[in-house]
Structure formats: C-alpha cells, structure tokens
C-alpha cells in the first residue's frame, strides 16, 4: 500500500466513524466513489455522489455507487431541507469557487456536514514555501501549478475563522498529525497535516 492510499484510508475511517449506519449520505465531489463504496459496505448507508466528470460517474456506476453528474449547488437546491443525514465534502472544499454557498446549501439539505481538507498551514508546507518559494509539490500536492485546478490554500485557522464568522457550529473536529495517523492536540494549525470537521447549523 502506498503512503497516499494509507493516508486516504485513515481519512475514510474517521469519516466512517462519524457516519451513522443506515443513513442517507451525499458526497460532494465524490470522484470515482471510493469513499461512498466504503460507507455503503461498512455502514449500509444509502449514498449518492456528485461530480462534474463523466469518467468519475462511470467509475461510480461500475462500483454500484449512485452518482449524479453536474453542479453540486444546483443539485442541492432541488432537495428539501434535511433530506440527507450527512453531507460529505472530502478534499473538495479547497477547489470550490464559492465555498460559502456550498457549505450553506449543504447545511440546509443535510443534518450534518463533514468537511475534510489538507491543512495548508502545516509546518512542512510553510517551510517548503519559505525555502523554495514555489508551489508545494509532495505526495499530497502532486501537480504543478499549471497542471492543476485552482485551489485555495486553506488552513485550519482559516477554517475555524470561517465557522466562527458564519455562526456554524463545530460538533466535532479531528486534527491529524503530519502522517495523518496520530491525532494532533497542540498547535494544530502548525502541526496538523489534515483536518476533519463535523458541522451543524
């Protein structure tokens, strides 16, 4: 198992812990449906993913995961309040063109919203930027700036500030150390590599 796959399964396990069995789950930016497949198998959830890319939808369909090709805000607007027990936004939030709109809408259609993101404020990321003066490239940030979609370098402090400013309640948070395995309890904005938030209105 590569280091990155190992990291990914840690991420999935924590999200899985937060998901109640037999509930209705929506994954925004579901990609090929790996997380939802895991949740269907381990938690028997009723799942649907949203993604913009036809090949990702095909991958979901081949796994037996229901998926919708289209814009996530337009998708959510067609659902009544609290239709989903949980909305998941795993490693998607940094690429959203209007994060506030997506998170607000997700908190309307979902009873809870799980957001997971790579902490750009992690000390190695800061050091990399400070010393090299270039876009970070490592096992998490794999692409050159000119090959990647635009991404906000969001940090834990940024996200905490956002929740406070918007009056969003943080029900749970998990900050993981640089290897994404052990919990990180001190100075998370500096020492945590990955962050997971469980939000409610």
């Amino acid at each position: 198992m590569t280091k990155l796959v190992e990291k990914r399964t840690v991420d999935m396990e924590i999200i899985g812990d937060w998901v109640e069995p037999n509930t209705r789950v929506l994954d925004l930016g579901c990609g090929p449906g790996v997380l939802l497949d895991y949740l269907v198998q381990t938690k028997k959830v009723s799942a649907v993913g949203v993604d913009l890319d036809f090949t990702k939808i095909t991958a979901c369909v081949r796994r037996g995961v229901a998926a919708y090709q289209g814009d996530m805000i337009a998708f959510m607007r067609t659902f009544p309040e609290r239709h989903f027990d949980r909305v998941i936004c795993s490693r998607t939030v940094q690429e959203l063109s209007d994060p506030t709109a997506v998170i607000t809408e997700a908190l309307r259609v979902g009873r809870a919203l799980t957001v997971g993101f790579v902490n750009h404020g992690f000390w190695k990321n800061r050091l990399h930027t400070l010393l090299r003066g270039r876009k970070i490239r490592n096992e998490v940030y794999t692409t050159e700036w000119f090959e990647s979609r635009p991404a906000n370098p969001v940090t834990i402090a940024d996200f905490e500030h956002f929740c406070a400013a918007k009056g969003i309640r943080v029900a749970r948070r998990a900050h993981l150390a640089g290897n994404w395995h052990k919990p990180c309890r001190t100075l998370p904005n500096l020492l945590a590599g990955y962050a997971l938030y469980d939000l409610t209105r």
Partner: protein
Amino acid sequence: MTDDVEVTSDTDSTPRHLAPGDVGLVSPRDFVHAQPFTFKSGQVLPGFTLRYETYGQLNATRDNAILICHALSGDHHCAGWHSPTDRKPGWWNNLIGPGKAVDSRRFFVVSVNVLGGCQGSTGPSSTNPETGRPYGTLFPFVTIRDMVRSQKLLLDHLGVAELHGVIGGSMGGMTAMLFAIEYPRFVRRVLAMATTGRESAQAIAFNEVGRQAIMQDPAWNRGDYPRDGGPRVGLAIARMMAHITYVSDASMDRKFGRRKKETATGDAYTFDVQFEVEGYLRHQGQSFINRFDANSYLYITRALDQFDLADAHGSLEAAFAPVEAETLVVGFTSDWLFPPEQNRALTLALLRAGKRASYAELSTDLGHDSFLLESEELYTLVRGFLERDQPFVFDYSI
C-alpha cells in the same frame, strides 16, 4: 430516430453478419395475444400481435433478460441482420451483441415493436376483423402504458421471471421508466437515455406540425386509406421536419454545410434541390414513407405528447414512489428535443423519492440521436451499469 446508422464498409471478405461481436442473422417472431386487451382509453381490442426479436439465451433462473425499447420511428429489429444482403443491421447493432456493451452472451435480449406500430405489431394499419379493412382511426388510442402492459404479456409468455434491465432512448426511455413504475418487482435496472418525464411545449409543437402535415394531405382521408396509398406527401414532410429535431445545428453543418448538390443546375432562381441538405431530407422523407404508416405516426406521437409522469401521479416523486429498480439516466449536451435538464430532473426526482439513481451526461454535438452514438465512453458506462465490477475489497494491511 434518424435512419443514419451507417455501416463501415468491409475491409476484408468476412460477411458483415458474421463479423465478431455481431449477433448475425436474426428472424423476427410474432407473439399473438388472443384475449381482449383494454386500453387506458377504455377501448378494447379483441387481441393483438407483437412482433419481436431475441438475442442470446434465457438462463435457468429466467432472470437475465434485458428489454430494449425503441423510439418513435424505431422497431423490434435492433441488432443483427435479416439477410446477408441487408443494407443496414438493426438500429442499435453497435450496442448489442456478443461481447458488446449489452452482451448477448450474458443476457437474453428482447426487443419488441410497440402496440400501435406498423412493423408487424398490431396497429392502425392492421385489419379490423369487424370491417375487413385497416382500423385507421378506429384503432384505440395508444398510451405508453398500453405499450408497457402489452410487452409485459409478451415477457410473461417468454417465461421471463425478472428483467435484469430495461433500456431505451427517447420514447424508449419513457417506456423503460414506466415499466419500473408499473411492475416494480419485475424490473431490476432501468437505463433511460435522451428522454423526459413529459414533453415540453416545443416537443409537442413539433409533433403537431408533423400530424398536421399528414392530416392536411387529402390522401389521409380521415385516416381511411388503402394499404399501398395514404398521405405520402404529408408523412414525408412530417419526417423531414422531425429529422431536423433529432440532430443538431453543428452536426448538420458538419455533414452538409452549404454544399450544393452535384445535380444542381447552377441556376439560383429555381426551387429544385440545390443544397445537399435538401436532397438529404427529401431522401429521408421518401425512405420513411416506404416503411412507416401515417396513422401509426399520428397515434405514437399522440402517445408521446400524452405521456406525463408528474401529471398522472401528482408529482414525479409520487410517480417514482413504487420503483424498486436502480436507474441510470443519460443525457446528451446537444439534445435540444429532450434536453439534459429534462433528463436530470428524472434522476433528481428519483433521488428525492429515496431511490437509487444516477445521472451521466455525455458531451456530443449530434443532438437527440446521440444515444445511438458509437462511443466507447457510452459503452463502458452501459456495460458497467449492467454488469457491475466485483465489489471493491478494502485492504487495511500495511
């Protein structure tokens, strides 16, 4: 649906119907239902015939059947060849066959000409036993539900216990969805492409122009015309116009542009065919009148216009409430007859109703008929939906 299924010319001496992946020579069969059949309108037929084809074998558990539903002008002949000298194979030959996306080695594929049609199934051109003449407008009004109910009788007759899937584009997509609504326990998968829960005013408008072209032709004679006659001019015009709605500005421009016919006289001040697109449409109209009955065209377009899942059940969600099948809807970006929004609305309603449903959208510039596209992407999606990969095993070992 257009008649544009082109067959790539032979590069070797293998006869086309013996090509690998092809179901080969097929023969249609007739299912005769000898009991009275009551239509949704309340009108009754003493019995009916459905013409159908099958490819592949029904398995021992009788649950590997896939029903193919055709569009307005389609028929039961969707794969293979009726004779080695046929100019074209069945209309969905690119999708269906041994090893293809709808794999006839795995599945028992059934394809039926709809009730009200004119390719062998009972319709307005069939003989009315009471008069000894074609039914004409005395034929009962047909709905998509009547088509579904009659096809279920055929599937029962064939011994199908459960449908592995029901697949259709355009009107076929409506039929497929209604199958899962009418017979929830019988249908495990629905694959609906380029379709809608109800036609827009624009789609009804196009159908009405087609009907008017037929009915304003004096040869229509209120639907009472001999088998070899009828409103040939009106039907050809209806087809020419409808054909435009099945393609797109971009695809017509690519195919014809403003190219002039070689036979064009060079004289701009004439109404003879000048542009290639004119000749093409005239050819489409002419070939259509040789295979389609004008009254069938009226009946089936009317069935399309009347189809309204939301109105029939109160809402789309209510319509889908009984569905037990898993649904995949596929829309096409350039389809302006049943545009992506109308396809998306189906998946969204299914999801709101708590059903398993997916929506995929292919970028094409071929218009409504994109569902007939030769596309590996589409084949992978269809195969994935019907066959599904083995469950992914999560490995936590390090």
